[in-house]
């Protein structure tokens, strides 16, 4: 017992001594319109949990907008020396309004697990943060774009503009009361949304029997891509999506589509089971088939959710010239699924702002982005 206590004291001492030796390396490409103002670890902590060493790291990176444009979003790739192979990680901050010359923070709060205390580098973390892209008010983009940040940031910005525009229109038409009603309805919808657990796993690509599950696509005449057909089957709690066929309804080549998949259970409750983002080489007015080898399980705690139908709603398209399309609010309302679709990040941000600071703060925020 005495020797094990000594060992723990030694390990604790070693961890304490090493806690200040974590490395943080922030890389910004040459010619980037932003620069690093500060990048240091704040509070960090290391502790043994069972057989694993857990390192908690906190930092608030500070960047400066050196361009002549207002900055709308930034995306950073984050890597560690022990990062699980086969995976990637990123931190993005959308809905920014950073003026030229202004600084802005990006918080990175990490927990790293290292197996055992063996190895010379145990308890020491080296984290590398690399700029993947920045988006400006005129929708211009800078960055290596290794994580598709251009498309992602652009889509979020378009959704944000769409939803701010809607709220501004409500404010102009119905005043502060109308705005309050809209936000409270949005919050109530979020609150009512069922909370399900989703598990996605690699499954057999070929159809292996099972019961067919109805999968329909929502369509609007002015949407650039249309879902034509899809096969989904269910075996036990597992739903498989072996193939989806999409057709172009535009004269522009498409290189990426994303569907949001809404699942409905026996009791009529609907929830977004996930998104189906896929790169695709879709020529004008032609079709393409997307195959998947995934199986999805949806549960509510220990209890499996009995999914009876799935609906695919087109949520994003990227054309070959890099332009991005997202559905309009009217389009979503027209298909009758606007309430079932997850709200945009911006809508959630604005709702949160209303909850914390009240309607005047929300109105000022809407004016700020005018």
């Amino acid at each position: 017992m005495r020797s094990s206590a000594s060992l723990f004291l030694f390990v604790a001492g070693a961890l304490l001594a090493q806690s200040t030796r974590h490395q943080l390396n922030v890389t910004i490409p040459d010619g980037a319109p932003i620069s690093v103002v500060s990048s240091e670890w704040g509070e960090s902590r290391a502790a043994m949990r069972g057989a694993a060493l857990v390192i908690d790291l906190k930092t608030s990176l500070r960047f400066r907008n050196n361009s002549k444009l207002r900055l709308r979003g930034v995306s950073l790739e984050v890597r560690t020396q022990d990062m699980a192979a086969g995976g990637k990680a990123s931190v993005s901050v959308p809905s920014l309004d950073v003026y030229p010359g202004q600084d802005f923070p990006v918080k990175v709060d990490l927990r790293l697990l290292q197996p055992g205390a063996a190895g010379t580098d145990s308890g020491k973390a080296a984290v590398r943060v690399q700029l993947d892209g920045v988006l400006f008010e005129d929708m211009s983009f800078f960055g290596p774009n290794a994580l598709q940040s251009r498309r992602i940031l652009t889509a979020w910005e378009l959704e944000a503009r769409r939803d701010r525009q809607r709220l501004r229109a409500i404010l102009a038409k119905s005043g502060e009361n109308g705005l309050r009603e809209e936000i409270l309805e949005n919050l109530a919808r979020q609150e009512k949304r069922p909370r399900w657990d989703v598990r996605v796993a690699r499954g057999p690509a070929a159809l292996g029997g099972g019961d067919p599950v109805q999968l329909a696509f929502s369509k609007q005449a002015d949407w650039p891509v249309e879902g034509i057909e899809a096969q989904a089957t269910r075996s036990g709690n597992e739903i498989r999506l072996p193939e989806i066929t999409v057709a172009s309804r535009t004269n522009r080549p498409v290189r990426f589509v994303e569907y949001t998949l809404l699942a409905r259970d026996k009791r009529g409750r609907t929830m977004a089971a996930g998104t189906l983002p896929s790169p695709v080489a879709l020529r004008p007015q032609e079709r393409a088939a997307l195959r998947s080898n995934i199986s999805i399980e949806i549960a509510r705690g220990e209890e499996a959710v009995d999914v009876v139908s799935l609906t695919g709603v087109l949520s994003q398209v990227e054309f070959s010239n890099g332009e991005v399309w997202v559905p309009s609010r009217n389009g979503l309302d027209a298909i009758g699924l606007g309430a079932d679709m997850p709200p945009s990040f911006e809508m959630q941000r604005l709702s949160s702002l209303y909850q914390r600071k009240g309607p005047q703060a929300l109105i000022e925020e809407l004016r700020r982005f005018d």
Partner: protein
Amino acid sequence: MKHLNEAEAALLAGGDLPFWTAPALHTHARLCGACRATVEEYRQQREELREQAENFRLPKGFDWPELEAEMAGNIRLGAEVARITPPPRRLQEEWMDWRGVVAICALTTVVITGWYLTGPAARHYPRIPGWSQARVENGDLELSANPSELGLKRQGSGFYFRSATPTATRVEVGLEGSLRSASFDQDSGQLTVTQVSLAQDEPLLYEE
């Protein structure tokens, strides 16, 4: 070894045991089914409590302007009262009365004892049915998201983003093999989106 008492189980569930006792109790909990179940129950209740606190929402119809007007009115009233009220006696004079000190001590003792005996023990928090979590599995690589963190794990190595708030505002599952989580910084209101995904050579969705 004797079973864990309730306090030890609760501290173990929260990772708050002193480092010199943690390994022995941890080992016991791992080997003893009853203690493991108790610790797990505390752990779940801890998560539920955290989520319950996070999910608190103002009631529908909550009227900000009315509240603002009421608060402004109270402040004005307070200012008016302060103007017409003579300055209070010095605290020193209050504390000179030993009977007051005894009364306050007795009252404090009663309140603390009452809270200790009937206060909100962890076991009495109501359960919240189901909370959103997501997992993507590809061989031995696992991406996972729960209300407080999002990350990936393979063969004992793990990498997790922790949410800026006690629970993430939203978790999204990309069926091509990605997880995304959004949270708001309560101070600045800044939205931060973290994402983990399978590397491009291991996609779950592809064009034929």
